[in-house]
């Protein structure tokens, strides 16, 4: 019976990590539904981008208030994870504060965890106030009602509870250390939780141990639950921001990809020796679909983008179309892509690994044409994203589908394209008049 807590802990740990592994597998399967793209170039620059943008949070601080608060939560998350290692080892081995022999280093570590935990509580509270009391505009857009709104708040509550549990655990521990309770050797520094003493006033050693153990267990179980909550929430960015910034666009923002499938067609058209009546070869692959109407037509990097989005809304806030009241919201483009991808994933799970046509698609089912045509391709959303998401590329791929597969461009644009085809200019002017300006006064 002596090892019961250890066994129980190992079971909880395995269950938590096992379930998480299952989610990661599903996540990676879904992302791989996207088309393959070659992102093996410029590895050095990619590492640099990841270090700067994800690790260094350089684009977060463009907005100083949210950026500063986010850095607190981010550093808190990373540093406090060192403590989680100790907690896990303690749980498995049945020890208490395994790293205590490190002496002063340990004291400083625990002390800094406490300060960070306190700062995280402050930051999370401010975040909650921004969302619910100040009601910052970008958190109130139409796509932020229902689950996305709840999700945002829920994450803040969980973080708050985890930090309070962590401090309670330490506070009770500190009291027990002061009282000389068995197993609770003096270790650590408690600059924050020592002020919790009044709560523990008059408690016996056994009830303090009960408080300390309860907080300890709830804290680690809470962390494991939170880990598994990620996949069902917008919060995956804490993991995916790293690969996403690594695979982010390296070429100038104005450079849109040239479609190879089209290049092949154009070359064939320009080739004077091509046989216009040639029958396609027996083994010819099916002609490539131009553009994207569903998530499978997008690249896996675009799908990774959609899971990385944490719905902060900086893109939408900077979008000229959105600012002037149009329906387009780059954040919604990312959320729609993710939601459709999840739907496709569930469809595959339900049909023994095969996607069965559900009569729906990303275009029209989630993203309307009105949204797509409102984009000015100004790249403000791409610039604004703190984790290198590119909503514009999805908009462009879907426009390509509309124009090249469906001939469904707005009439004005069809006129413009007709002009280019016929006169080499978007307006109905004769190409022969191109130099007239030089003859005018």
């Amino acid at each position, binding site marked *: 019976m002596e090892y019961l807590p250890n066994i129980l802990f190992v079971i909880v740990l395995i269950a938590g990590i096992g379930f998480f592994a299952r989610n990661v597998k599903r996540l990676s399967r879904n992302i791989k539904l996207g088309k393959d793209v070659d992102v093996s170039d410029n590895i050095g620059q990619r590492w640099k981008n990841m270090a700067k943008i994800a690790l260094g949070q350089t684009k977060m601080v463009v907005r100083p208030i949210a950026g500063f608060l986010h850095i607190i939560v981010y550093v808190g998350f990373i540093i406090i994870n060192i403590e989680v290692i100790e907690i896990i080892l303690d749980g498995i081995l049945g020890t208490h504060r395994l790293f205590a022999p490190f002496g002063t280093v340990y004291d400083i570590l625990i002390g800094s965890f406490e300060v960070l935990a306190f700062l995280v509580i402050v930051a999370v509270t401010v975040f909650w106030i921004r969302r619910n009391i100040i009601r910052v505009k970008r958190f109130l857009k139409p796509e932020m009602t229902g689950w996305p709104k709840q999700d945002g708040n829920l994450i803040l509550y969980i973080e708050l509870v985890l930090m309070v549990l962590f401090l309670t655990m330490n506070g009770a521990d500190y009291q027990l250390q002061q009282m000389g309770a068995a197993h609770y050797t003096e270790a650590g520094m408690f600059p924050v939780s020592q002020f919790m003493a009044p709560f523990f006033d008059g408690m016996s050693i056994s009830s303090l141990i009960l408080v300390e153990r309860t907080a300890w267990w709830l804290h680690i179980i809470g962390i494991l639950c939170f880990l598994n909550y990620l996949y069902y929430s917008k919060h995956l960015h804490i993991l995916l921001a790293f690969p996403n910034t690594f695979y982010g666009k390296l*070429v*100038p*923002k*104005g*450079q849109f990809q*040239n*479609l190879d499938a089209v*290049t092949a*067609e*154009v*070359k064939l058209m*320009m080739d004077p020796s091509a046989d216009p009546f040639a029958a396609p070869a027996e083994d010819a692959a099916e002609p490539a679909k*131009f*553009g994207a109407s569903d998530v499978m037509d997008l690249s896996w990097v675009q799908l990774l983008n959609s899971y990385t989005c944490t719905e902060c809304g900086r893109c939408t806030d900077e979008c*000229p*179309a959105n*600012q*002037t*009241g*149009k*329906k*387009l919201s780059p954040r919604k483009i990312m959320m729609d892509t993710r939601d459709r991808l999840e739907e496709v994933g569930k469809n595959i799970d339900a049909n023994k690994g095969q996607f069965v046509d559900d009569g729906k698609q990303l275009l029209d089912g989630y993203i309307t044409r*009105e949204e797509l*045509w*409102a984009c*000015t*391709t*100004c*790249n*403000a959303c791409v*610039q604004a994203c703190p984790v290198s998401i590119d909503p514009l590329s999805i908009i*462009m791929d*879907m*426009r*390509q*589908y*509309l*124009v*090249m597969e469906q001939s469904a*461009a*707005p009439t*004005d*644009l069809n006129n*413009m*394209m007709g002009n*280019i*085809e016929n006169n*080499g*200019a*978007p*307006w109905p*002017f004769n*190409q*022969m*008049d*191109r*130099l007239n*300006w*030089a003859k*005018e006064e």
Partner: protein
Amino acid sequence: MAELFAAGQKPEVLFWVGCAGSFDDRAKKITKAFVQLLNRANVSFAVLGTEESCTGDPAKRAGNEFLFQMQAVTNIEVMNAYGINKIVTACPHCFNTIKNEYPGLGGHYEVVHHTQFLKKLFEDGRITLEGGKFKGKRITYHDPCYLGRANNVYEAPRDLIRKLDAELIEMKSCKEKGLCCGAGGAQMFKEPEKGDKDVNIERTEQALETQPEIIAAGCPFCNTMMTDGVKNKEKEGAIAVMDIAELIASAGDL
């Protein structure tokens, strides 16, 4: 270009005029101002004239990759045949497309925007300017998306405005955060979607907040949008919308 080529001469640079610069009455003035500056600096340049065709930018941004690539390979054929190495253009859309999207289709050129080119002319002492009529004027500069965010060119146009001894005032969203004029992505050629207001009105309001005497732009389409915006606000009597090249050309006794 055809004439120079026939005479066996090679210009220093090809001036890519663009559709707006060739056909739009307002943009033609920008073209002429820039040509004036090129002549002033004794730059040997050529234009393709009737052999120039749309770069394909609006087609590509509208989603017609096919038409874009047709235009691109045609233009590339022409330019490669003339052995063009260096191109300057006063249109950020042409600039972006030729610089970034033509190489993948066989068109490799050194492409600069006219503000970068003019800046170099100043640095090399080929044109000079002292004081001039814009001295002390309040000028705000609107960043074209395809020059700024798309290609990180923010300083060349600003350096030129500073050369005018003018007071350069920034709008609340500028440089990386510069608000679009509303014309990009082929919006120039269609009606906007339903909303509260047009993008160019929003941007003009930001510009007016700086209480400028002149709104400077580096793109013929931005110029149109801002001019329309200023007219909408009935300020066309007090505020001029001008291209950087026009500012420089009309500043001194050029």
